[in-house]
């Protein structure tokens, strides 16, 4: 109970400071828009193309936008030695980690939910056909991204070139989750039901989430405290 409250407190603190400055969320959102624009030039997709690449396109946008938010997650605490103070507070390291992860998760999900209709408008995709399964996919994929991303954000916070290191480390590890999320999103945007192959991909996503949540929670104390 106590732990749950500290998780909530950390998440609340992060969200509030982000919503005051809106640094990461603005950067991430405008970056996502720019990528959507570049893609329309890079592929000049017809309606048929768009149907095929929709999932991949969306998740590339989300993965890039996510790296911006996740970079800030721990880097935000570096000035004024806030990180040391946070580690010194009497809450377990995994509570700190989960709080930060939940804050990034909500921010990233918000960016994704704003991008989705814009994507629909720009590329003429009807995205609301299977909205609830799509939301589930977004949530699971984003959870995978924030879990590993926050863990790696903590990992890279004290090293040189952290902004460059995070994507280099994050994307390869994230590949299985991205594969699942991309396939699932493409199929759902094409109006398929959540059955058959899609269930397999859903299971892949859920399994990945469970494994990496457990692994991150188990190892975060080592990363933060040493």
């Amino acid at each position, binding site marked *: 109970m106590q732990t749950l409250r500290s998780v909530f407190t950390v998440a609340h603190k992060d969200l509030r400071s982000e919503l005051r400055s809106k640094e990461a969320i603005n950067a991430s959102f405008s970056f996502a828009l720019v990528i959507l624009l570049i893609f329309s030039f890079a592929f000049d997709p017809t309606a048929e193309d768009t149907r095929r690449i929709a999932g991949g396109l969306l998740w590339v946008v989300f993965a890039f936008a996510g790296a911006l938010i996740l970079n800030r997650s721990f880097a935000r605490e570096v000035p004024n030695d806030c990180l040391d103070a946070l580690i010194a507070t009497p809450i377990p390291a995994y509570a700190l980690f989960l709080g930060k992860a939940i804050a990034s998760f909500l921010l990233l999900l918000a960016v994704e939910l704003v991008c989705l209709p814009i994507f629909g408008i720009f590329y003429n995709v009807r995205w609301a056909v299977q909205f609830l399964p799509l939301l589930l996919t977004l949530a699971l994929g984003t959870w995978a991204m924030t879990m590993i991303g926050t863990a790696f954000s903590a990992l*890279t916070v004290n*090293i040189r070139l952290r902004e460059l290191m995070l994507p280099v480390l994050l994307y390869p590890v994230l*590949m299985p989750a991205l594969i699942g999320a991309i396939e699932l999103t493409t199929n759902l945007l094409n109006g398929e039901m959540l059955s058959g192959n899609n269930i397999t991909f859903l299971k892949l996503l859920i399994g990945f989430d469970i*494994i990496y949540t457990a692994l991150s929670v188990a*190892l975060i104390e080592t990363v933060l405290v040493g």
Partner: protein
Amino acid sequence: MREKAIYFMGTLGVLILMRNLYVILLQLGDEMQQGAIYRIFFFHLPAATTACIMFAIALVASAGFLITRKFAFDTAAAAATEVGFVFATMNMVTGSIWARNIWGIWWTWDARLTSMFILWLLYLGYLIMRPAIEEPTQRATLSAVLSIFAFCDVPIVYYSIQWWRTQHPAPVLTTPGAMDPALWPPLLLNMLAMLLIGLTLMMVRLRQERVLREIDSLRRYAHAI
């Protein structure tokens, strides 16, 4: 003594490889479907097994460091990862050359190739991150954690890509026919030789890392006075 043992191991590995070259090139006939090119397999597969063994050593050493906090484990993990990376590269390059001849393309996003590439990228990240951390304890801890993350990813990557690829027809067919029993001895010997060479390189790398640590402490000492 130790030095000699290391170099003996390396020389033995190279000698076995040389002798096998003779067996492979002159004693074995061409394969029916593939012709001469199948012989690349004698380098391709042993490189892969050596790389996997090296990465497994790195995983065990990383876990060992996190449990015991002894720097010897960290050094072993770093050395094993670097050597494993070299052999993984060799595996991919030889495979690619084979594919160019048999499939007509250098690369395809087939399950195995893709997972090997992701594995390669993961450990490339490890090797890039390590020198970016200055403080030795922190470097050891963070690299150990990263190594565990990376290794856990390998089986998931492999299965996920297989599921993913079942969605699409494979662009090319891999045809692993039953292997001629005459091919087994040179293949196994090559695996052994490659592993010996890998271990030798790892030992040399280990020694370097040890000297580097000595330099580090000397520098610190010089600063202190």
